[in-house]
């Protein structure tokens, strides 16, 4: 009912505005990325954009990229193993990963394993902190990670090959082809990562056993200009991986995990006067197989096919006002060895409004209502202001309500799935201060999040079943800083982040386990002509491993540094050869108890661009 009402309201608004007059629109800017809301409706929040050159300088897993370049904390079960983020002190299910505008968190577990996402297939990766459920749906509480393929229509043909080989027989290869003219833009890439991952633990006779992994991905993005007002775009990704899960004691049973993900998105962008419409259809699939004993062929599995239909209409009303409506229909069909064969359908309508009142003042407001018979979905909303108080100082304020919906496992696990669950929901607010001086930018953000109805599995009789239980509140502050300096042919860039996080269970009044109070990163890059050097630094504060915060069992804080140097031998093309040392100071560290990460290790890399 609510959904239908909302739909009518949306249609009425649209009809009204259809009569308004035309204005100029930069079509190509809209066509460039599929996730337009990241640009248009994220002005009152903190967005950290990691461009191609940052992506290139980092290891190929999303864990590594974000661990060294953002405030997000990672809990990694050993290098390359299961990796769960905690963004602003929230759970792994409360951070959404968004691929070209589509939320790709697993329908089965509700989270993304950040070691199963490669970074090299994307031209830009953005970290949008804070609530985003109106736009990005379930799990956008701590924040959202945006994986984007940018499509340009400037004439080019380029081939890029990146190969990296190093310790523990670790290989990373990536080939990317980009072709574009004024009618067509096309990118295709293939990536392969593999490692024996049998590193020795620092200061110990033990080594990482059964940690080998490999993964392969294919990625394409394509845009075709039909005429001035119509563009057709296609995005697709295929990701296939197998990981053995490393052991703590050599006599443990060896296990492994395979997963295959496919993602396809077709989009038609149509420009007509003040209207920009995007019609999207997406088909996603995820499938995993878990082998509880690698010596046996027996496995358990789960799979979900998702179909999404989306209609996204932006109306530029002039006077700095933009109105965006999004209608979305999502269908998930899941089955598996432990879940019943189920189909779920979710419809939603969103209304987003943004108003540039003066050149200095802008505000935005949005709301969304879902309709589904699987759970009671709350009205979600977001409201924010962005005000330039001085040339060098901008203030941002945002408040929102967001959610994380029950997963297929929560609803349909056999036995125990509970079809009477509410989504986890959050009220949150943040205040951001952006300072911009000549070569220096600084952003200071404070936030508060209150989350209720946290989903947790507890036994009911002899069966386990999920229920809505705890309340959690998290608050803290984030600092993002960057400095760049050019002196003749010398170029220097310094980036840093720091997060202070309090995340406490409201019942126990204790800090959640595996949420550090402090996390900091720093990156220094130096270029001189064709030579470049980079230094990366990560500090992770100690974390509790016990719910009663018994500090005897804390995991110690750690500081890890990486350093790289490279030289480009090419004249017109790039022929870059580089050398990298990871964990330069040979720190003995672990992010999960007894899951040590590697000591000092080395790799060489070759980047060719022609």
């Amino acid at each position: 009912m609510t959904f239908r009402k909302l739909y009518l309201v949306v249609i009425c608004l649209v009809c009204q505005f259809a009569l308004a007059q035309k204005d100029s629109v930069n079509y190509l800017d809209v066509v460039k990325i599929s996730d337009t809301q990241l640009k248009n409706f994220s002005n009152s929040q903190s967005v950290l954009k990691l461009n191609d050159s940052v992506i290139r300088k980092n290891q190929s897993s999303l864990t590594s990229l974000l661990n060294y370049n953002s405030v997000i904390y990672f809990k990694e079960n050993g290098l390359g193993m299961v990796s769960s983020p905690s963004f602003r002190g929230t759970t792994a299910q409360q951070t959404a990963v968004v691929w070209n505008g589509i939320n790709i968190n697993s329908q089965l577990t509700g989270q993304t394993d950040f070691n199963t996402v490669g970074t090299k297939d994307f031209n830009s990766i953005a970290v949008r902190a804070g609530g985003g459920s109106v736009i990005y749906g379930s799990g956008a509480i701590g924040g959202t990670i945006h994986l984007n393929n940018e499509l340009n229509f400037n004439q080019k043909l380029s081939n890029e090959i990146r190969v990296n080989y190093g310790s523990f027989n670790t290989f990373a290869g990536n080939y990317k082809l980009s072709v574009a003219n004024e009618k067509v833009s096309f990118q295709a890439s293939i990536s392969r990562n593999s490692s024996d991952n049998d590193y020795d633990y620092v200061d110990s006779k033990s080594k990482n056993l059964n940690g080998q992994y490999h993964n392969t991905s294919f990625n394409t993005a394509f845009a075709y200009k039909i005429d001035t007002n119509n563009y057709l775009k296609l995005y697709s990704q295929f990701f296939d991986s197998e990981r053995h899960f490393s052991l703590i004691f050599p006599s443990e049973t060896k296990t492994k995990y395979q997963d295959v993900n496919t993602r396809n998105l077709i989009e038609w962008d149509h420009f007509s006067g003040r209207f920009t419409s995007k019609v999207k259809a997406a088909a996603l699939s995820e499938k995993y197989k878990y082998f509880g004993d690698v010596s046996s062929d027996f496995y358990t599995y789960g799979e979900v096919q998702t179909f999404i239909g989306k209609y996204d209409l932006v109306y530029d009303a002039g006077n700095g006002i933009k109105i965006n409506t999004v209608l979305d229909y999502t269908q998930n069909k899941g089955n598996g060895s432990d879940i019943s064969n189920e189909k779920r359908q979710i419809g939603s309508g969103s209304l987003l409004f943004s108003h540039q009142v003066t050149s200095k003042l802008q505000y935005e407001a949005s709301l969304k209502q879902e309709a589904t018979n699987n759970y009671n979905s709350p009205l979600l909303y977001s409201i924010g202001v962005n005000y330039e108080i001085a040339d060098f100082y901008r203030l941002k304020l945002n408040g929102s309500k967001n959610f994380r919906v029950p997963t297929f496992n929560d609803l349909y696990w056999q036995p125990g799935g509970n079809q009477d669950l509410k989504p986890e929901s959050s009220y949150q607010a943040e205040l951001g201060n952006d300072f911009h001086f000549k070569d220096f930018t600084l952003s200071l953000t404070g936030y508060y999040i209150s989350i209720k109805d946290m989903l947790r599995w507890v036994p009911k009789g002899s069966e386990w079943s999920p229920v809505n239980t705890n309340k959690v509140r998290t608050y803290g502050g984030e600092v993002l800083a960057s400095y760049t300096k050019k002196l003749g042919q010398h170029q220097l860039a310094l980036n840093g982040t720091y997060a202070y996080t309090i995340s406490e269970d409201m019942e126990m009044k204790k800090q959640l386990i595996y949420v550090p109070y402090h996390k900091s990163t720093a990156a220094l890059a130096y270029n001189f002509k064709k030579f470049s050097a980079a230094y990366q630094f990560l500090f992770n504060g100690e974390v509790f491993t016990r719910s009663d915060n018994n500090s005897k069992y804390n995991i110690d804080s750690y500081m890890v540094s990486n350093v790289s140097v490279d030289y480009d031998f090419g004249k017109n093309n790039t022929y870059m050869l580089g050398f990298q040392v990871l964990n330069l100071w040979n720190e003995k560290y672990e992010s999960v108890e007894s899951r040590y990460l590697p000591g000092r290790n080395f790799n060489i890399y070759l980047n060719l661009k022609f």
Partner: protein
Amino acid sequence: MKKLNSIFWAFAVSSLFLISCSSDDNNVPDVPLGAYDNGLFVVNEGNSTVTTASITFISNSGQVEQDVFRTVNPTAIGTGTYLQSLFFDDTRAFIISGDANKITVVDRYTFKFIATIDTDFDSPRYGVVFNGKAYVTNAVDFTPGGNNNFVTVIDLSNYSTSKVALNRTAEKITAENGKIYISNGYYGVGTTVSVFNPVNNTIDKVIELGYVPDSFEEDNGVLYVLGSKIAKINLTTNEMIGAPVALPAVQNDAKNLNIEGGKMYYTVDTSVYAMSENATTAPTTALFSYVSNSDFGAMYGFAVNGDRIYIADGGDFSSDSKIFTYTLTGTLDKTFNVGVGPNGFYFND
């Protein structure tokens, strides 16, 4: 009078000495065989992290020492995670880690590390010693009704191992009357007890109960088997004695049979029930109940020994938890802090 009085006192005092002398002569004093004699071990199952798996020692005088294995053996390799249970022979204690597929052997009185046994295990559960060998059940992948379960036979002179297939679920295990008895129930499936012959490592007999066994204990030549009913098995004939005593429907999930002083004690959720060995009907009211805030660890461990009932509360499996002792009439006696997820009591007297 005064003299008489002093004679009386002299006599009284000397007789005291005499009595104490004779008492000393007759009873060999219980000289502790190590720091961990005369007390009980609590196995703290822990979670997936290494430091949560621990053993707590509580002496008979009530002194508590946490994490005794790591304290005594700081450089030894750990016991493994998810400690399942512990069993003894005369001099040794055997600590089973379900996840690490291994048994850590220590001196039962000093807790000094002796050896690690890590061959021929796949999710080991419970063990028992008979005639120089240990017999350990293995749940493999925990499939209810799993016919791939097996018994690991360990030669305790050299810790060599071998596997004996059981072709049915293998859970609790006990040695009585020259035979090894294995309960075949797990998670609502399997309704038998197997009689295993340690002479030739074969199954002599499979006793059909008609219900799923949870636990069993022997007393006076009879094996009492608890599930939704209580059966008695004659250990000479391996036949059931009469029909099993049915428990009331609300007690279907009965667990933790313990026998002490001719009485059977068992638990249902957070309640303790007691009935005579010879009773033909089960009690409908509990002896007592305790309050647990644990979502999935209420009554996680239970034992009756001497004049005390022991209850372990699993807590949240992410922080240290507690055990409680009660008198046999159900009055709370003492509370002790232990480790993470306590699941069993092992008395070392």
